[in-house]
């Protein structure tokens, strides 16, 4: 049936031939790749050449950003009618299959390109200060450069296999960087966990690819988008299966329920890594994948509902865990999981632009928060290091009052906090508002979306609370670091604070890229217009009815009120009682303990899945099947048989020439008889 299908489906998606700067888009990948090679060589040969590493490591990122900016300018000047495909070489060619190693330049990939290289550049610069003292400095930059190269392959790939290279590549870099300080077993374990959990998701992407190839005979995004609407029935079993398997990949990569548990552990890596990989870029790959295949998801309303539901649930669930964490990075990690949930709520609702919008603003303020926390940890670490104390440098109970010592970091993180809480008119306000409004609007078609909206709203309250709690515990009140240590607390050097300032500015005004119509100043809906060509087909299939007029104002008012309430509660409740240091703190009790222990999900997974699996593997698979059946009967048995036959063969090799000639002659007689017949 597949071949008749092929005959019935001649159309490929429209594409534009690359011209101008777009032809050189591969340079954006090549630069970081060169950086990886150079830094990798330095890491092996001359790890002490830190200046060279800094120059190469950040230089290639800035060069990639320049490429991205040039391509963006070209696309703005001459918007193409269809995606520009830059084919580099024929990769897999076979009967009926022609997979090009090609990059797709369109409005969506350029947005991602700018975010990855832009935010990436800032984080690379920050790392120069943050990692300077580390012995593995060159190795660190090599990995970071390699990550950016793979991330760009992911967002630029014009088909699923190329995307998958990037998808696996960023995963690899992520594991390498999570366990960067591999001397500590916990770090190595965290890397392993991320690796294993992500395999589940990757399997989903692979199955989706096979299904797509079977049904559509193409893996090119443009061709899939062109063929699927005419081939597969809307909300049919096949399209639901394809999109659900794709989404499984997203759930793994973007840390959604039930596969989110790896991300908080991933904070074991250096903090700039958390900012770049586990907040701003890699974990948003799932959102990008849905937006990239928006037509498929729009054709499967059932899947879309699942996506939105999982997103809303994750947003709420992760935010609630964030309420009671003490490790500053853990709070931010759960916050990331929660915000990713918002993005999936958006793309599940059909508000693809809103999802990408939140992806962009989140990249700004979450990168800022992570880097800011990095500055704090850096200062705390130095203070403890100077006094040879072994207290936890990441525990917020050991901080407090840092505002006095690190005014810049405090001010900038406050901007990010207000942005993520959704205070108007900061960037996060616009993107979050658009998502909630879209969910509310979809409530007209199905009541369940009103529930999703309510969950999003509750999550927004918690977000404001835990972020303000973080700020209050870290920067306000009295300092709890210790008298001796206090003298060593100081603001980070400018190479670290500088990138924070840029990110602070972006968090402040980032909303300008997609202002809603009600906002008094223009231009409005820039991102909507920019991404229109990419999501138009999906939006036609799944139109979103945005609320207008009084309803819209009521929603905005509600959201802002909730943000304000959350912020005030977070501030007042945190500082109401004196906070004991981590050393003296009593154990949490009651529900707070459940939250602190993250609902015991890790323990439940361990008991229900990990342990039974390990036991099953050990007893049945290893001892029984592998050692008993495969090794014993299969491998050893057949190897024994083969060896026995081989032994007979080598016995025949007597070394006696006469015998050889006899064998030769028997063969010759047989051969002549055969040909003569």
């Amino acid at each position, binding site marked *: 049936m597949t071949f008749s299908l092929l005959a019935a489906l001649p159309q490929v998606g429209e594409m534009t031939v690359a011209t101008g700067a777009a032809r050189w888009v591969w340079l954006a990948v090549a630069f970081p790749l060169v950086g990886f090679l150079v830094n990798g060589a330095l890491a092996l040969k001359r790890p002490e050449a830190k200046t060279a590493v800094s120059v190469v490591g950040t230089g290639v990122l800035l060069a990639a950003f320049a490429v991205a900016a040039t391509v963006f300018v070209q696309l703005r000047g001459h918007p193409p009618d269809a995606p520009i495909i830059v084919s580099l*070489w*024929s990769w*897999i*060619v*076979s*009967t009926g299959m022609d997979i090009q190693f090609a990059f797709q330049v369109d409005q969506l990939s350029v947005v991602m390109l700018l975010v990855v290289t832009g935010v990436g550049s800032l984080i690379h610069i920050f790392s120069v200060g943050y990692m300077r003292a580390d012995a593995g400095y060159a190795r660190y930059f090599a990995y970071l450069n390699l990550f950016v190269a793979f991330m760009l392959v992911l967002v630029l790939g014009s088909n699923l296999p190329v995307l998958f290279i990037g998808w696996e590549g960023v995963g690899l870099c992520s594991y390498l960087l999570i366990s960067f300080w591999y001397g500590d077993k916990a770090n190595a374990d965290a890397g392993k966990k991320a690796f294993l959990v992500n395999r589940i998701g990757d399997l989903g992407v692979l199955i989706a690819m096979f299904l797509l190839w079977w049904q559509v005979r193409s893996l090119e995004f443009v061709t899939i988008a062109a063929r699927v609407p005419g081939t597969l029935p809307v909300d049919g079993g096949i399209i639901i299966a394809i999109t659900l398997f794709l989404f499984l990949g997203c759930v793994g990569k973007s840390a959604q329920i039930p596969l989110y548990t790896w991300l908080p552990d991933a904070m074991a890596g250096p903090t700039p890594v958390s900012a770049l990989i586990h907040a701003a870029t890699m974990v948003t790959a799932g959102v990008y994948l849905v937006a990239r295949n928006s037509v498929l998801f729009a054709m499967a309303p059932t899947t879309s509902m699942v996506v939105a539901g999982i997103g809303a649930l994750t947003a709420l669930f992760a935010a609630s865990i964030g309420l009671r964490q003490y490790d500053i990075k853990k709070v931010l990690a759960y916050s990331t999981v929660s915000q990713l949930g918002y993005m999936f709520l958006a793309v599940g609702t059909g508000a693809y632009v809103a999802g990408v919008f939140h992806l962009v603003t989140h990249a700004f303020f979450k990168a800022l928060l992570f880097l800011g926390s990095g500055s704090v940890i850096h200062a705390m670490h130095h203070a403890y290091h100077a006094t040879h104390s072994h207290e936890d440098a990441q525990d917020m109970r050991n901080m407090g009052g840092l505002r006095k010592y690190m005014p810049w970091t405090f001010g900038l993180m406050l901007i990010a906090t207000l942005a993520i809480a959704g205070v108007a008119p900061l960037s996060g306000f616009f993107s979050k508002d658009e998502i909630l409004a879209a969910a509310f609007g979809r409530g007209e078609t199905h009541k369940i979306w009103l529930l999703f909206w309510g969950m999003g709203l509750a999550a927004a309250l918690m977000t404001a609370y835990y972020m303000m709690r973080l700020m209050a515990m870290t920067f306000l009140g009295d300092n709890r670091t210790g008298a001796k240590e206090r003298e060593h607390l100081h603001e980070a050097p400018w190479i670290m604070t500088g990138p924070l300032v840029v990110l602070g500015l972006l968090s402040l005004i980032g909303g300008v890229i997609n202002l809603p119509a009600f906002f008094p100043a223009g231009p409005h809906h820039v991102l909507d217009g920019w991404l229109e060509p990419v999501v138009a087909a999906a939006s036609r299939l799944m139109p979103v009815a945005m609320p207008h007029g009084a309803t819209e104002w009521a929603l905005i008012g509600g959201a802002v009120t909730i943000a304000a309430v959350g912020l005030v509660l977070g501030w007042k409740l945190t500082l109401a009682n004196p906070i004991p240091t981590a050393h003296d703190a009593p154990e949490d009790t009651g529900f707070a303990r459940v939250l602190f222990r993250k609902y015991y999900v890790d323990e439940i997974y361990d008991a229900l899945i990990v342990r039974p699996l390990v036991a099953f593997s050990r007893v049945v698979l290893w001892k029984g099947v592998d050692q008993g059946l495969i090794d014993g009967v299969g491998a050893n048995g057949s*190897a024994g048989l*083969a*060896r026995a*036959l*081989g*032994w007979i*063969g*080598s016995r025949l*090799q007597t*070394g006696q*020439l006469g*015998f*050889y*000639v006899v*064998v*030769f002659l*028997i*063969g*010759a007689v047989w*051969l*002549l008889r*055969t*040909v*003569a017949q």
Partner: protein
Amino acid sequence: MMPIDLQTPSGVTLALLPEILVCAGAMLVLMVNAWKHHTGADSRLAGKVALASLIPAAAALAWLWAGGAEPEGRPFMVALDGFRFASLALILIATAATILLSFGYLEREGLIAPEYYSLLLFAASGMMFMAGAEDLMVLFLGLEVMSVSVYVLAGFNRGSIFSAEAALKYFLVGAFASAFLLYGIALLWGATGQTGLSGIGERLAGGELPLMGKLGLGLLLIGMGFKVAAVPFHMWAPDVYDGSPTPIAGFMATGVKAAGFLALVRILYVAVPDAASTWQPVVAALAVASMVVGNLVALSQRSLKRMLAYSSIAHAGYLLTALWPGTRLGAGAVVIYLAAYVLTTVAAFGILGVLGKGGERDVTLDSVAGLSKRHPWLAFALTVCMLSLLGFPGTFGFVGKWAILSGVVGARHILLAVILVVTSLISAGYYLPVIMAAYMRDAGAEDPLGGRRFDRAGVVTVAVAITVILVLGVLPGSVLNSAIEIAGTLVRTGGSSLVGIGR
């Protein structure tokens, strides 16, 4: 296009320029030997002259190839097509690599024998005549020139009784096999009145092969089967490889085998393509026997050299499978696989040569134990060789096996394909332990190389081979395309694209 009239002396000279230059080089080496044959330095000098004399031959080949030389009028005595040029290139590469690996080997073994290099060149010229022959008589002459030189080379380690045994065995069975070959040529001539390959092909076109022709073809296959060491004409191979100097064993496994297969392809595809129903069952049976026996017996070998000898028998089976379809794809697969096999085997024997100590009959798995700790690059190169011989994805060997499978599956002989895959799987049973020994076993206090050093020429040769194996393993597209194109100059029917890779 460069038409060359093969009926005129000047035309033949042009067409045979690479062969002539190699012969001239061999004689030059002999003349140098007349004055300088006493010290190791003299021996090195001879090797350098031999190596240098390959350069003009390669240049002449490049000139003919790039110029698109083709026969004016009827083909006569020597072929002028892409397939011959590719064959010559393969043989030149194998020869050059053997010379490069011999420098260090002869020094390590203390063999002062400058004649060695002229014999290598004579053998190479014989191979070139053989692989490029358009006439059975030329083929036979080439084969004899090659064989006589290689008989001597096999016995070159005069101090070793095993080397003498190897030479004698090879010579006796070889003479026996040559008689079969010559008788086969005579019968084919009797059946068709022709010795030219195209002439035979025209005479037989469309008709049934007479019994005399069938017997002639059968005898021819026996003779060629001996040269390529196909079961059951293989019994000489393990003993001879074992006793010969290691670079010569490598030369036999690559050059002699390549020349044999290239000549065989030409005979079967040009002279008797219409008698496929006669030769295909025989080729299939020889292929299966070689794959099964070669791989199974290799499993129970202790000596790595004998293991590689049986492995080369198994590879003869793969190559017979490759040429079975009689299509363009089949000829292309032979070229690709030979290229992969020659490169890998050259490197493998090169490494074996440096691992061996004192007559190197005792290189076993224990000799490579812990190699990775002391010589990580050598262990890596050995690993790549084993994986490529195994046909592991990412190596050139995999591409070769894929090409063979594409051809066989395309010609709908699924059973052959299945046997090839299963026996390849069995071969993991003796290739992988080498890697395991190199990486997972402890060397103990002793250096696996025992203080011997790999000389620079050897290192460069192995490094280049390994690089090409890896690069073409990952990016096989262009070389696959050119192989199909080359095959197209010989056969114009059947299968233009490989399943899966290339275009």
